């Protein structure tokens, strides 16, 4: 079965929606802000993501097809296969995304998506150039082994990416409760992009927020605590090369300067911010500090 490429089909919609969001901000209907250099950097990152993805398309498709030959079940294109696959793929996305935040090696590939201090539809396109090199696709490899076809996998990953475009906006407030309970929404994803301690490393969902509720990583947006966007150590550059590679450069420098192999491995695979002397400011440390501060403040 020939399935279309959802991302290619969605590009005109991406452009139209960005223009609409820009208009919403310009006419002050909602507090949407676009800044020229930030937007240009995000869009160049998007194009770079498309370009750097091409050589890996063949490699990943090849690996997936090979694994599919070893599949346990012959699922094909039954109607229920699409339903089962929707949940399976979205669950894989949750773990891919969580892995990308909780371990520095994969964070190095994902950090660029979070490096804008703005939160608008252009931020959605600030995509990785190094995700494939980092091998994040391995999280999806059980899918062909189960028996889902490579075409269906490629299609659904595109659908997930397209879905996640529209949630990168401040132009949409909270949606009706049943939708907020089941789906990843702009409100939930604003939390994910925020650096406020209580919001750090939360709401990893792709399409369904139920995974965060299930695995204990869900935090709702609190109007009393507006989101501050970006990363804990804000970058001071709009240069796409630096945006794409800065964490790799820093991580490799740290690992090379490590006194022993154990520390070097710690720099590569422990949580972002980890330091061997225990002074590192990981998300867990930042959250704990904020909690202590709140307790002290409440005394």
């Amino acid at each position, binding site marked *: 079965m020939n399935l279309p490429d959802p991302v*290619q089909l969605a590009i005109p919609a991406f452009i139209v929606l960005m223009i609409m969001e820009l208009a919403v901000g310009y006419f002050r209907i909602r507090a949407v802000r676009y800044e020229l250099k930030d937007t240009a950097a995000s*869009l160049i990152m998007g194009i770079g993501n*498309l370009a750097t993805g091409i050589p890996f398309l063949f490699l990943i498709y090849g690996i997936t097809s090979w694994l599919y030959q070893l599949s346990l079940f012959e699922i094909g294109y039954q109607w229920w296969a699409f339903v089962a696959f929707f949940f399976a793929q979205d669950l894989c996305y949750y773990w891919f995304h969580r892995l990308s935040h909780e371990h520095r090696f994969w964070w190095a590939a994902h950090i660029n998506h979070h490096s804008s201090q703005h939160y608008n539809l252009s931020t959605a396109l600030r995509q990785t150039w190094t995700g494939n090199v980092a091998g994040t696709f391995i999280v999806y490899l059980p899918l062909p082994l189960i028996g889902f076809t490579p075409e269906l996998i490629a299609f659904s990953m595109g659908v997930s990416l397209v879905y996640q475009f529209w949630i990168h906006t401040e132009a949409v407030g909270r949606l009706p409760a049943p939708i907020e309970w089941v789906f990843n929404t702009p409100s939930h994803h604003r939390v994910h992009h925020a650096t406020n301690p209580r919001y750090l490393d939360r709401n990893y969902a792709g399409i369904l927020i139920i995974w965060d509720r299930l695995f204990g990583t869900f935090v709702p947006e609190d109007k009393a605590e507006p989101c501050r966007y970006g990363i804990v*150590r804000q*970058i001071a*550059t709009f240069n796409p090369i630096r*945006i794409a590679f800065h*964490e790799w450069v820093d991580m490799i420098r740290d690992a090379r300067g490590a006194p022993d192999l154990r520390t070097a491995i710690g720099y590569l695979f422990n949580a972002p911010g980890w330091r061997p002397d225990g002074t590192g400011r990981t998300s867990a440390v930042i959250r704990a500090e904020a909690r202590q501060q709140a307790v002290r403040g409440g005394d």
Partner: protein
Amino acid sequence: MDPTSFILPLFGILLIVLLVWLAGGRRTLKLTRANVREALAAEGYQTSSVTVADDGHTALAWLESRNALAILRSMGDHPAILIPGPDDIRGISIKGDPPRLQVQFKSYAQPPIAIILNDQESLDRWRKVLMLYGELAVRKEAAS
């Protein structure tokens, strides 16, 4: 992938960038003592000393609540805040007359900063702070 598939995204980029520019997206935040304190307060920090570069692009602040230095830069319409640890700084120097403070960072995401410290009091104050962050190479050069 069809190479022509890049034409629409490229056209889209140009269109969006043009519209953002026309819609006033070319804002540059000029740092002041007030907005530096405000930005740090939003992150939960209390500041005692703040020095802002004459061009309003860079500022130094001492965080009372954390006993740490904060470096702020104007990044478009936002301040970017960095609270460096001693290991984050590659080199610090004060050169020239009036003294020009330069800080170089280890991180690839942090280009160097330079601030002209107009008065001796500022120089003395920040020299003490910066000593905590590594060796301070002080070199006075005659103004040309």
